């Protein structure tokens, strides 16, 4: 039943197929073709694509709360950064005595600050399974506590958006402080290896890329199975008429809390995959502007479509790279700002939403409508 329904979605299938192909082809073209070959994918390009894919996971996570439950979080960058910091702490511990100061336990910045011992909250991060658990547990817990308060007291709409922004702003200020023990301004960097593999080597980079592509696929499947379940219908109902849902006996708060926490965990995983590919995590990831950018990726792709936000994240970031590395760099903020305005005014359903509306209209009128976007009922082979 489950697989049958999952497969009954051609858009999703295409998306998954592309991801699977990318997970195999890109690393293969990087590792197996010679440097000068026309088919060769340079490592920096692969890492760049890997970064886009982590952003795609983040946008997909945001879509789950915004597109399907109407919660416009302006703080999802914070969960991404928290996951990133958890991974960064693991990578810091892996450096061991190879740091500049050669301290076997303390990361360089702590030696520099004259700290004598590892703070208690750094314990266990040298052990990968624990760090991996923290990658989801910390963002999840913070989202849970925050949501527990916010949803229970029925803070909704823009009020909620503004306090999520305040949340990430507060975290930004906190992580800038040296005595927080997360490297202050500079954050965590100079990583050496991950699970014993050299973090700089092409093979490790290729592996990370493939892992990111597969994680995006997995995140899509999880999100899709949530929105297709009855709980997913409740979420949509909460988005459209929250109080009606309560009168039906559902605790809307719990549904929101569930999806908010789940989404924060996904964002955390995205951040954890981002850090080893970029090689640094610092407090600027908490900047409120970052979180709002995630919203625009989601809006561009088409919220409430899952695939759309992932595409939007990749497109917008590709454009950003193109812009900011060329002569057009000063105009990037004009372009980004314009994108915010134009998408909200003229493309409220985003690229995928608009396209599938168009396709649905062209198809025979008898097609069965699906809650959020038009369906593609015939299963692919």
């Amino acid at each position, binding site marked *: 039943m489950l697989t049958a329904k999952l497969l009954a979605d051609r858009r999703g299938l295409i998306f998954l197929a592309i991801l699977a192909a990318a997970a195999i082809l890109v690393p293969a073209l990087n590792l197996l073709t010679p440097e000068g070959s026309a088919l060769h994918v340079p490592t920096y390009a692969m890492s760049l694509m890997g970064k886009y894919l982590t952003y795609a996971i983040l946008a997909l996570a945001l879509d789950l709360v915004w597109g399907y439950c109407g919660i416009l979080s302006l703080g999802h960058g914070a969960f991404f950064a928290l996951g990133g910091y958890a991974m960064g702490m693991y990578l810091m511990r892996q450096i061991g005595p190879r740091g500049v100061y050669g301290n076997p336990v303390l990361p360089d910045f702590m030696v520099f600050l004259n700290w004598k011992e590892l703070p208690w909250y750094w314990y266990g991060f040298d052990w990968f399974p624990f760090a991996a658990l923290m990658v989801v547990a910390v963002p999840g817990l913070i989202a849970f506590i925050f949501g527990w308060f916010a949803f229970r*007291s029925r803070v909704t709409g823009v009020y909620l958006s503004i306090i999520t922004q305040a949340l990430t702003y507060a975290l930004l200020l906190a992580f800038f402080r040296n005595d927080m023990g997360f490297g202050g301004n500079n954050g965590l960097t100079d990583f050496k290896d991950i699970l014993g593999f050299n973090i700089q080597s092409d093979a490790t980079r290729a592996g990370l890329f493939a892992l990111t592509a597969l994680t995006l696929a997995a995140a899509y499947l999880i999100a899709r199975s949530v929105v297709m379940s009855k709980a997913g219908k409740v979420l949509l109902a909460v988005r459209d008429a929250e109080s009606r849902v309560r009168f039906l006996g559902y605790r809307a708060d719990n549904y929101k809390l569930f999806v908010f926490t789940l989404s924060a965990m996904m964002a955390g995983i995205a951040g954890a995959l981002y850090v080893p590919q970029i090689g640094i995590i610092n407090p600027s990831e908490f900047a409120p502007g970052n979180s709002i950018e995630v919203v625009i990726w989601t809006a561009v792709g088409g919220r409430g479509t899952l695939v759309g936000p992932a595409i939007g994240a990749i497109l917008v970031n590709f454009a950003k790279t193109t812009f900011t590395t060329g002569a057009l760099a000063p105009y990037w903020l004009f372009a980004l700002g314009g994108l915010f305005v134009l998408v909200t005014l003229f493309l409220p359903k985003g690229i995928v939403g608009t396209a599938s509306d168009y396709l649905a209209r062209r198809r025979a009128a008898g097609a069965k409508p699906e809650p959020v976007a038009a369906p593609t009922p015939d299963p692919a082979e």
Partner: protein
Amino acid sequence: MAHAVFLILSRILAVLVVAFALAHPAAAQTLDTAALAKGFASRSFDDVEKAVTQLAASGSPRAEPILRALNDRLLVIAADGALLIDKAGAYENAFTGEAVTPTAKPTPIRVNNKIRTTLAAAMGALTLMSPDRQKRLEAAEAVFKSRDASARPLLDKAIAAETDARVKARLIEARAAGVLLDQTATEAERVEAVATIRARGDQDAKGLLSSLPAEVPPAVKAAADRAITAIEAELALWNVAQNGYYGLSLGSVLLLAAIGLAITFGVMGIINMAHGEMVMIGAYVTFVVQETIRTSFPGLFDYSLLIALPLAFLVAAIVGMAIERSVIRFLYGRPLETLLATWGISLILQQAVRTLFGPTNREVGAPSFMSGAFDLGGLVITYNRLWIIVFTLVVFFALLMLLRFTALGLQMRAVTQNRRMAAAMGIRTNRIDMLTFGLGSGIAGLAGVALSQIDNVSPNLGQGYIIDSFMVVVFGGVGNLWGTLVGAFTIGIANKFLEPYAGAVLGKILLLVFIILFIQKRPRGLFALKGRAVEA
């Protein structure tokens, strides 16, 4: 408590009231220049020090330039033993001021730290008679800190001649410091000195009283201990008052930044993320006005802010109205979309300003009436902060009046309360929307003029205020101007009282967390409107 307040009042009086003085006839002395020159030329630091003391005590008009030259390593000894002052290569006789040309290169006189200390005290004493009030004030302070008993004759002279109340009070305190440490003074004199120093009442007074040598008689010691306790209580109170003032000052900045938002968000319900950029525009208008004045009408500099105010209001209001007409009006009833679109606008405005004016901070100067500070008892009050508080309150009440008593205000309230009814009564709601938004933006522009005085004028200026402004408006209760006022001052004062304990950053974080929790407890803010109007 009442006692402490009384102390503070008496302290203010002590500052303001002219102290009485005793005249001392100045004893004219002739200088034994040969002996002095020999002393300075000596290889022994002790002899040099003695010469410094003698020269200082002489009261000669040449004492000051000589000692200053010594201090600046410009006092030299010629081969013939004459004392010269090195005037950038040319020399003059130290005692007569006549120019001389030495045959060989003279040797500079060396000083050690001990001599430097003596020198500082001596020069302090000498400048006590300077015609420059500021210099006298500094000198009196220096003598107070050096606790130099030997300066007493000079002090007495200076006190007699002094006409400025504030300088005189400082001189009397400096004299008391000497008396207090003078073993030859009588017990009664020393107890009286304690009282004088106690009346001074600041950290330095406390420091002096708590570092008395062991020799002081028990009665003086007891008086000093009592004085210390009293000063501590008083200082604590001043500290609270100073924090309160800083809080008021921060609160007024928050209020100023938030008032415009209280209109656009509070009254109209528009989430304008570009609000901070309206503030920034106001600040840049101020910059442009000042630049124009600097280059073309330098005489008008002191009026630059006054000229900038209406222009900043207009420019920000026009930009605001353009935004409302071109984007926001299509998004009424869709707050989240409005939030995103206005965020985009804020990026565009920032980049536009960056392109026009460059990414770095621009210098906006302070007109003379806004620079400097004055003491109010134990408070230090800077003029720019004081003017901003005043300005904020003026803007606030003017806005209140505008909403309450003008036709525009009436129509604004009508439209926000019941749009369709207002439209049915012939109010052009579109126009009112535009004007209301323009008003909110214009006020943000005014805020920019004021904030240019205390913040860096850069393209990022506005970003620093947007989250704070929303916090203030939401905390105070949306749609309630008074709530915004109370919210801003509450947050400002709370912030300043938290800072000493938690540090600036942590204090701010704590406050943010508090507001987040508060909004969750009372989602509609401190002064919530009730009823169905809110739910719509």
